[in-house]
């Protein structure tokens, strides 16, 4: 077997760009981040500019790396759900679902139907909350201030719904292996139905205010086109890939999970693959999710929300891969258990890491302002990259 060798000094030059002004040969190296408004946190982007055109770029991540894969080896299964809440902090509930499913599948148990329905509803609610933020944020990134406020305003209804059901606005930690912590509070269904109507109205507003705005279209159409095949081989998933015309949604096409098969819904795609398509697809998916929640509220079965589980959870030996369609894309856990109270190894597959890994390819040759459009339309959460 050949001995592996690597020169650590290779390729470090670009990342070590200095901050002071120095322009050589018409090229300028600009640091975007790690403290930059366009990077949603602590992403650092080093770009080499010719005038305002990007010649090359490098993404530097890890400023917020928390080592969850290592930490999971020191935690028990119920404790881990608290950790993974913080991976994609905008849709925490959706993070819990695949992990809890992984444990349940290894143990050979299933949550009661009511729990699965509530899980589906809450997953879709967190998807709406995530996307509403995106719909407003994207406007802000291309310079329109007002949509951001509309997005925050309507996201509040959804967060209230999540909070009144789970007790937590951002980190519910509501899933238990074998079900849910609690049943829904009284009156929740009626209130959520009202909120969903507001969300649908809000989507119409975004359609009018942002999508049909000529300047917005000028800024986003044809910018940052992800070719479908290339995107898939980069591991780009979720709405980003569907915006490139790939009709692939794990809710429908993955191993069946939750109760999506019982619902009447549609997978939206767009053939363009540009920033506008990504915005448009997410807007349609927000609508679709609101419709799904409305359906779920209508057919919510009665019954317990927790199945019988031992007090101290020991997961039998085995391996399982569970991936789900999270708001940002494919999220998956490869859990290896050796029969202890905690997993032996958890490989966390986060959507944003793969989604952002295509950024250097996408950013070649675009203008400086397009970097922001492309990054915003890829829609990543730093916690989801720096897991």
């Amino acid at each position, binding site marked *: 077997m050949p001995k592996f060798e690597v020169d650590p000094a290779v390729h470090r030059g670009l990342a070590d760009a200095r*901050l*002071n*002004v120095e322009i050589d040969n018409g090229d*300028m190296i*600009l*640091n975007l981040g790690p403290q*930059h*408004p*366009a990077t949603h946190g602590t992403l650092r982007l080093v770009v080499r500019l010719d005038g*305002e055109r990007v010649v090359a770029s490098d993404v530097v991540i890890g400023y917020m790396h928390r080592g969850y894969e290592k930490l999971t080896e020191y935690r028990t299964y119920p404790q881990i759900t608290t950790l993974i809440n913080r991976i994609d902090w905008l849709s925490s509930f959706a993070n819990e679902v695949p992990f809890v499913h992984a444990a349940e599948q290894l143990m050979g148990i299933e949550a009661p139907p009511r729990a699965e329905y509530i899980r589906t509803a809450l997953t879709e609610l967190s998807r709406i909350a995530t996307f509403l933020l995106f719909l407003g944020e994207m*406007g*802000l*990134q*291309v*310079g*329109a*201030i*007002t949509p951001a*406020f*509309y997005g925050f*305003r309507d996201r509040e209804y959804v967060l209230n719904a999540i909070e009144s059901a789970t007790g937590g606005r951002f980190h519910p930690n509501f899933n238990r292996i074998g079900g849910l912590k609690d049943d829904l509070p009284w009156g929740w269904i009626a209130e959520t139905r009202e909120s969903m109507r507001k969300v649908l109205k809000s989507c119409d507003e975004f359609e009018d205010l*942002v999508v049909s*705005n000529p*300047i*917005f279209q*000028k*800024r986003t159409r044809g910018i940052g086109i992800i070719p479908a095949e290339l995107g898939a081989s980069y591991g780009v998933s979720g709405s980003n890939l569907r915006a490139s015309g790939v009709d692939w949604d794990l809710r429908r096409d993955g191993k069946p999970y939750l109760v999506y098969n019982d619902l009447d819904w549609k997978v939206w795609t767009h053939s363009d693959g540009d920033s506008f398509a990504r915005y448009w697809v997410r807007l349609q998916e927000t609508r679709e999710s609101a419709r799904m929640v409305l359906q779920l509220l209508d057919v919510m079965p009665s019954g317990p929300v927790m199945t019988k589980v031992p007090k101290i959870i020991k997961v039998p030996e085995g391996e399982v891969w569970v991936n789900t369609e999270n708001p940002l894309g494919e999220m998956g856990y490869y859990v290896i258990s050796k029969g202890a109270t905690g997993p032996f190894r958890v490989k966390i597959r986060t959507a944003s890491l793969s989604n952002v890994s295509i950024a250097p390819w996408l950013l070649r040759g675009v*203008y*400086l*302002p*397009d*970097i*922001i459009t492309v990054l*915003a339309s890829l829609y990543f959460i730093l916690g989801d990259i720096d897991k």
Partner: protein
Amino acid sequence: MRSLAVDIWGGWATTLGIKTLIVMGLIPVGALVLGYTFLLKMMSHMQSRLGPMDPGGFHGWYQLIGDGIKFIQKEDIIPEGADKRVFKMAPAIVVLSTFLMFVVLPGGPDFVVAKDLDVGVFYALAVSSLSVIGVLMAGWASSNKYALLGSLRAAAQLIAYELPLVLAVIGVVIQAGTMNLQDIVRFQASGEIFGWDGLGLPLILTQIVGFGLFMIAAQAELSQPPFDMPVAESELVAGYMVEYTGFRFLFFFIGEFGTAFVYAGLAATLFLGGWSVPFIDVDADIMNVVGPLVLFAKIMLVAFLMFWARFTYPRFREDQLQSLAWKWLIPIALANILVTGALKVAF
């Protein structure tokens, strides 16, 4: 014969000093009014929130003044690598440009802020271009790449939009036959629409194209959305202002909103009849009191349009902005001049 010193202190120099003080007082007040009305309150209400409510008791009227006081108290930070003299001078030059523009704005038959210039329009547009120098100085002296990029964008943008701005006004100048702002106001007040002189002739009726061009170009000159690339907060953080704090930043703020006030005033004067108001004789003494109020109302109307666009639209990209200026605005402005000139000769 009196000595030179007496002449200077007793004569025109005193008048000059008083007028300077008036203008210097007007700039922050104008900036304050626009900032409070539109930035704090109108924007908030458009975005389904209230904006400041507590400071001062009534709808947070004191908020912006308090902000100003806060800015003055702040530490004056100059980056280590900065060119200190240029860095300090830059905000002053931006405000100087605003200051000089105020000078010719007429508020009544005998009331021009400082000087009734023969070439008032031209003068105002000429001194408005001074602020570019200040912006370039700020961006370069900050020793910051974002600032440098911001000021480069600002320069490219301001040069590109200076032209449609001037060309948009030429239609008015041709029609009124003068560059004197007072005369333009009088022309509009005494004009008539197809023989009916009830309203006078606000030039927006005949120069609607020019008005549109002027508003777009003014928006670009002010670097407001959709043309705010020089300060684009999502990409360049704050552009050329990124290293400024405290009262130097306050200067830029005052410069920005003060200039918006003057541009709104120019638009009101050139296209909406300025301080004149229908049914009151232009040269009546009362106009010296009513005139400024009328002008202020018209300024607020024009500023409303400006800020409405500012809070609604996303921003263009730099190349899109340039092609808008060169491929659309300038040809349209030239055609407008041609048509206006032809009609002027014909009638």
